[in-house]
């Protein structure tokens, strides 16, 4: 692995591998490839991360989410990336954001779509390689009247 081309390929492979993989349980992990040997088996703890999402969602079409890290828990570290995973969705990676230097808080508010009731996982990757995760079980509730328009 000495040529620049193959080194570049390795770096690309590492850059595109799912850094959040350890946050998923075994079953969900098998759905996703490739696996990066460096992060495989790294345990993700709660740390300073919080996922704020309703446990009873009135519609899977729009579920509000707040994902944030308590700055006091960071010390000298920064949050590189935030992600939201929905293992039961057809595409399990709901959202993945690289945080820029202009952010004053490692905090994001949005709304996502869920295809089924499931444990939604918030993930944060810190500058020292630490992985934090927080899972909330979200139940989707059915509609009262169907709308065929």
């Amino acid at each position: 692995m000495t040529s620049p081309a193959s080194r570049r390929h390795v770096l690309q492979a590492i850059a595109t591998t799912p850094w959040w993989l350890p946050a998923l349980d075994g079953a969900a992990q098998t759905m996703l490839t490739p696996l990066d040997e460096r992060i495989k088996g790294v345990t993700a703890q709660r740390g300073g991360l919080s996922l704020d999402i309703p446990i009873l969602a009135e519609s899977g079409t729009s579920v509000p989410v707040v994902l944030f890290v308590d700055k006091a828990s960071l010390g000298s570290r920064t949050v590189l990336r935030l992600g939201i995973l929905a293992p039961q969705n057809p595409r399990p990676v709901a959202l993945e954001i690289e945080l820029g230097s202009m952010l004053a808080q490692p905090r994001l508010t949005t709304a996502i779509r869920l295809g089924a009731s499931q444990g939604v996982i918030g993930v944060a990757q810190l500058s020292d390689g630490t992985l934090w995760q927080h899972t909330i079980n979200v139940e989707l509730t059915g509609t009262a009247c169907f709308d065929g328009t």
Partner: protein
Amino acid sequence: MANEPAPGRNARLIVPPLVRAGEEFLVKLLIQHPMETGFRRDVNGNVLEANLLESLSMDFDGQSVFTARTTHALTANPFLTFVVAVKQSGSFNARWKDALGNAGSISASVRVAG
């Protein structure tokens, strides 16, 4: 349909017009986009073509606010809010592109008092 803007051409980027240097404030982005998953069907049973955002990012005069790598499960007409702070006046610029190649962008200026 005539007069209909391409998906992702219409958006809102809301920031306060005037802030203090270093003061934290919210930047709110709302994009008009169907975020078609490719799983829905029309009344005749035909699959509606998938069209999700493929790239989405925001900067402040060139400095990154965020870069989205995946936005699969954002809702249709998605919104995102972040907490930022700036030291001097400047412009927030958001840009995005979807799977069908429609590109959009929006800017909003913020002025630092004093």
